């Protein structure tokens, strides 16, 4: 099913009816969880820009040499560079795609989109949000009042402008986005997948409800008892989660709210290398940092203990007063 094309309601319901939604433990390794992602899938990515990116899972998808993933996210940063630069993804659906404002344009994005035959479908930020939300609500679309009049809309015939049947006002209907799988990184969840998210939630809750399966990576796995003591802090319920992987520093070199800030030295070095040569530079980066390390911890060691600790110090400082 192509991105932008709607699954009939019956199929969406059947997919869900066939999922095991029972209260069961689903802890597994990063390798096992990544193997649930199949070539050609529509993949929804949690977090935004450099925050709570499911980087460990993306890293493992690249190691497993996935292909033709169609990846959607509210705002795409280094994650998108790595996904298209590694050949794992050939299609990005988002509202903004670069490395971050500090580094100007992404040469990796430019190379692959302008000349490399990869696609970047642009929607407004709210449109992406409403597409996930429609998917989460079991609806074929949601109306919005933006994108109208712009060329962003002109390139998106998947959306439909209508006259409101109540008021006659012009509205844009954006189609639901129900990814085959969502990759979401959280601060805490239990073995069943009940997840708590501190700070910025981005579009992760709608994304989790919309997706046909969800892989959670988490900084730590806590007991179900702990979750039950504050059920109003649960943001993603266990029954939409299919895999739970404990990966401390699983968003590195990006940030995870309250735990660590972005590892900026590594980011600066990364950008210098891949923007210097978006093909060879990227290849060398992938070799050294993705393919060669024996484990995620080995990758963290390459970033360096000092930088990891400094990121943690500043990350935790949000709670210092």
């Amino acid at each position, binding site marked *: 099913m192509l991105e932008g094309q709607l699954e009939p309601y019956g199929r969406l319901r059947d997919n869900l009816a066939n999922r095991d939604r029972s209260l069961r433990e689903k802890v597994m390794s990063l390798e096992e969880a990544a193997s649930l992602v199949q070539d050609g899938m529509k993949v929804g990515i949690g977090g*935004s*820009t*450099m*925050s709570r990116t499911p980087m460990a899972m993306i890293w493992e998808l690249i190691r497993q040499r996935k292909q033709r993933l169609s990846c959607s996210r*509210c*705002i795409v*940063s280094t994650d998108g560079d790595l996904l298209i630069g590694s050949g794992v993804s050939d299609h990005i659906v*988002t*509202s*903004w*795609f*670069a490395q*971050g*404002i*500090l580094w100007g*344009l*992404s040469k990796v*994005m*430019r190379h692959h*989109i*302008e000349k490399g035959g990869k696609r*970047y479908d*642009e929607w*407004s*930020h*709210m*449109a*992406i*949000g*409403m597409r*996930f*939300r429609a998917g989460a609500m079991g609806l074929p679309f949601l109306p*919005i*009042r*933006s*994108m*109208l*009049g*712009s*060329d*962003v809309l002109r*390139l998106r015939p998947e959306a439909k*402008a209508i006259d409101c049947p109540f008021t006659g*006002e*012009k*509205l*844009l209907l954006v189609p639901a986005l129900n990814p085959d799988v969502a990759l979401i990184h959280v601060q805490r969840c239990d073995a069943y997948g009940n997840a708590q998210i501190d*700070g*910025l*939630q*981005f*579009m992760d809750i*709608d994304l989790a409800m919309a997706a046909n399966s969800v892989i959670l990576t988490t900084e730590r796995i806590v007991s179900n008892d702990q979750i039950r003591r504050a059920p109003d802090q649960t943001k993603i319920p266990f029954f939409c989660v299919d895999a739970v992987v404990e990966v401390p520093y699983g968003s590195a070199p990006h*940030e995870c*709210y309250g735990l660590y*800030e*972005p590892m*900026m030295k590594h980011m600066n070095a990364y950008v210098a290398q891949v923007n210097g040569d978006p093909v060879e530079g990227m290849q060398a980066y992938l070799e050294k940092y993705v393919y060669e390390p024996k484990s995620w911890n080995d990758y963290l060691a390459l970033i360096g203990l000092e930088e990891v600790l400094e990121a943690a110090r500043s*990350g935790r400082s*949000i709670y210092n007063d």
Partner: protein
Amino acid sequence: MTEARYTAAEILTVLAARHLSDGQVVFAGIGIPLLAATLAQRLGASGLTILFEGGVVGAFVEPGKLPPSTNDQRCTKRANMVLGSADVLLLLQRGYVDIGFMGGAQIDQYGNLNSSFIGDPGDPRTRLPGTGGGNDISSLTNMIVAMKHEKRRFVEQVDFITSPGFIRGGRTRAESGLPMGGMFRVVTELAVFGFDEASRRMKVLALNPGVTREQVQDNTGFTLVFDEKTAITKPPTEQELSMLRMLDPERLFIG
């Protein structure tokens, strides 16, 4: 001026900050807008409510801890509320926001912004990052844009309307389904611009100190409208500049 007391980015930020007032709700983008809104807060408009696209309401960014994007935790320190990023954008649609405040890569005479494509979108010379929240913000509220003034950035017609201003002028914005908001001010290191009430074309409201009409026109890719008596903006004060430099000691955004 025998010697520049401030950089282009600094005067841009200071002038932009002056357009915000206490009590307003402003949706600010990363970079100069975030910095200018924070500057306004520190210079008297302590009741200015700043919203960020990452999902932040009522932020008070700490001096020296500017975030690298509006999706970072630094944006939330001492904020009044944190919510989902679709939900903070919906505040614009509902009408809680007075001013949208963004940077721009390319703008045209009707205030349309392009941050998507240079050249033909089907075979672009440059694929730019895209709209982010820009399209939503500019579609749904009154906009202030702060940007560098260069001829290639101030064009007669943008290659691609990412964030709508007044589309083709006149009533075309409302007719496109955007009845609310529109471009309000453009602030550059050379001048401050508004838009004609009828034609919706960009016009010069005030020149920055030491800047001539010719300079502005020479750096603009279309014919500008000047009022009979174009005002001259007061230069940045020492207080404005020192506060600004205190906020951005690493000169992350003020260059």
